């Protein structure tokens, strides 16, 4: 009887752990999947796709050459800077230049700030890795803290005041259930 209960408890605990860990795992799997695939953009046209990887240098926005819609640093109408950058990209695409070469040409002209996201190279790796590593470390930390809490809670219960025998007898009588002493 006791063995069956222990086995049942263990089984329950295992299921509970799976329930708790599964969502946490989900978020990291999703995140890793995102980082490894350029699934965000849906545009198929190569020029537009490349334009989305280049920041509009009008100075008035934080947007890409494809999406920027501002004039000369203020907000209105198609941005001349973005249009110029996009047409340069289109010309390079027409000349069948590779993506890397096109982006490199823009980096040479404007510096690395022209890339809308930092390339995962050198110090910039930290930009991509840190938002994953820090929450992961935090989860581990919380896990450790929670385990310590639970141990303390167990100790507190074990060292708590003893329940008087007459109280337990009354509880059994009134509820019709069995309680451990």
């Amino acid at each position, binding site marked *: 009887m006791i063995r069956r209960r222990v086995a049942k408890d263990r089984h*329950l605990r295992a*299921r*509970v*752990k799976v*329930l*708790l860990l599964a*969502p*946490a795992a*989900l*978020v*990291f799997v*999703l*995140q890793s999947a*995102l980082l490894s695939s350029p*699934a*965000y*953009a*849906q545009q198929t046209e190569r020029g537009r796709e490349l334009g989305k990887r280049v*920041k509009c240098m009008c100075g*008035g*926005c*934080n*947007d*890409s050459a494809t*999406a*920027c*819609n501002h*004039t000369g640093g*203020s*907000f*209105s*109408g*198609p941005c*001349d800077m973005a249009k110029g950058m996009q047409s340069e990209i289109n010309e390079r695409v027409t000349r069948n230049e590779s993506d890397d070469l096109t982006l490199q040409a823009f980096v040479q002209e404007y*510096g*690395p*700030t*022209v*890339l*809308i*996201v*930092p390339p995962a190279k*050198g*110090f910039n790796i*930290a*930009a*991509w890795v*840190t*938002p*994953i590593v*820090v*929450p992961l470390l*935090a*989860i581990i930390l*919380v896990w450790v803290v*929670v385990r310590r*809490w*639970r141990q*303390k*809670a167990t100790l507190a219960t074990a060292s708590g005041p003893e329940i008087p025998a007459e109280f337990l007898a009354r509880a059994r009588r009134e509820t019709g259930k069995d309680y451990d002493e």
Partner: protein
Amino acid sequence: MDILGSFSLLLAFLAAVYAMGAGIAGIVTRKTLLTKSARNAGMAVFVLVTLAVACLEYYFFTDNFSMAYVAAHSNRALPFYYKFAALWAGQEGSLLLWTWLLSTYAFFAIFINRNKHPELMPYVGVVLASVQTFFLTLNNFVASPFAVLAGADPSGVMRVSALSDGHGLNPLLQYPEMVIHPPMLYLGYTGFTVPFAFALGALLGRYPGEKWIHITRRWTMIAWCFQSIGILLGAHWAYAVLGWGGYWAWDPVENASLLPWITGTAFLHSVMMQEKRGMMKVWNIWLVFTTFMLCILGTLLTRSGIVSSVHAFAQSSIGNWFVGFLALVFIVCCASYWKNRDYLRSDNQLDSLVSRESSFLFNNLILLAACFAVLWGTLFPVLSEWVVGNKISVGPPFFNKVNIPIALFLLLLTGVGPLLAWRKTSFDALKRNFAWPLSGGVLAGVIALVFGFRDIYSLICLILGVFVTLTIFSEFFRGARVIAGRDGSNLISAVGELTMRNTRRYGGYVVHFGMVLIFIGIAGVPFNKDVQKEMSIGQTLNIGPYSILCQNFDRVQNGNYDSERATLEVFRNGKSEMMLYPERRFFLASQVTETMVAVQSSPLRDLYIVYAGRSPETGQPVIHAYLNPLVKWIWFGGIVVVLGTGLALLSNRRAALVFRPVTEQAWGDRLPARVSPVGAIAQRGDAND
């Protein structure tokens, strides 16, 4: 009148300094008179700053162009409501607005509690006065809105001069939302100072237990609500004015407004752990501290030019002041915590991992992960420049990649948390509670797949949205069924009764539902479409189910701007549906052109049309049409969030036993009214829950 504003602002500074100094002296010497005097000075700050704000508004309405700030941000032809809003159009005025809202909060926090918590309030008063002193220092000595224009006369003597007309208000701000968006956001930012003051005051004064949490719960919710409204209005303004078809660009200043909102959200959840179980006291104190510091950081980012942003004010040395203040706040918080950390011991421990407590822990952790990811992305360009000397960009794709999974996990927790019991939840209860919401979510996912919903994140968002909605409705249904069964009332009135008995809990569920609607709205982004075309009169542009016929281009003029307007007829399935009038306005005072977008909004999709101007090559007008699905859900979700917060702010209604006089008619004569021993159920409000 000309010096009244600057004089009252200077007096306000002196009053704040006195409130701080006398407050500290009162605490140290335990002299009640000093404490009361400090309290009164703290309230006087509000009156004086209000006077200063009224003066500046008066200068705007009277076109006093000898005032440098008025000349820079207004002109004679500006409509009166924009003259009112011009107060916060620049660095100096917006800082004054900040100080005014802060002093308003401080006034009411002190006034409402003037006869309560005598051990706590002196500390709170000192903290509030200290924060006000900092901002009033800036208002008076660093960025005064009352500077006058001066010029040398022929004899070389400097005299006050005035422009004949001002430079006008930034055209981007000439939009109805901009009249209310900044005050709402500032009400959020400044509102978090109140819980900060109570938390720090309680820690410094070792004020017992969870009282500071009970006192500040409503203040925090009010600040959070204003911050939510401010963020959403800002997003709506960006959508309706900027003409790029989106509402959130992960701009550093947008991010700065999101950061304290996220930690504030975490705090609103984790306080329940402290209230119900006496746990997470250290966490809560630090969440409040962090929220306040993030508010200051947001202001620093906006005003210092540290990061490049479309919202940033001109670069100035004011950032150094904020850095210094932020450092000081951090040191004070650390020192107070270290000195009084014994007071923050938990009363209870976690009993089970499958419990409401652990769901709150995860919720807080994920919210802080999101906060960290946004902060990291925002500040990484600065960090990169410091470390390797390279200026790089961290644009929207970075934030989307990092934050979408985190946000989806949070949405999942929104559904899971309410289904877990405090202390411990059995596996059977889990199965019972999760079975049909989860089945509903999966079913919705399958249906969406069948209808061609192929974007993975949108699909997950939809599944989780349905799951969370069903958990919320099941919570309402189960509670209402019990009440209806017992009272014999119908289910709808039972839902009302249930909600009013625990407004905080059920108001919270309404807020969750609002967040689900916002998430569903955001899930529409991958399905956005846009077409840009040069159009002459009689030509047609096709997008989705719509055909847009260009009927006319005309010019509209008034004293403030000249406008070029397109008249477009929108057809759907060959049937004329509506007329749209996108414009381009040329503002005369500032010599800047802006777009006025025409939007036809429906729950399914927005048809969003920008008149982008004339092509430089051909001279033809260019129309840019966007089809943005589900955007309306975001604004509607925002309204639901605000209503839910309002509901949670109400006092609980409880069934209470009260005695009422009953007049009994005796045979032959009339008895005086007496109290019947028979109780009657009456409703009463309980302000403490």
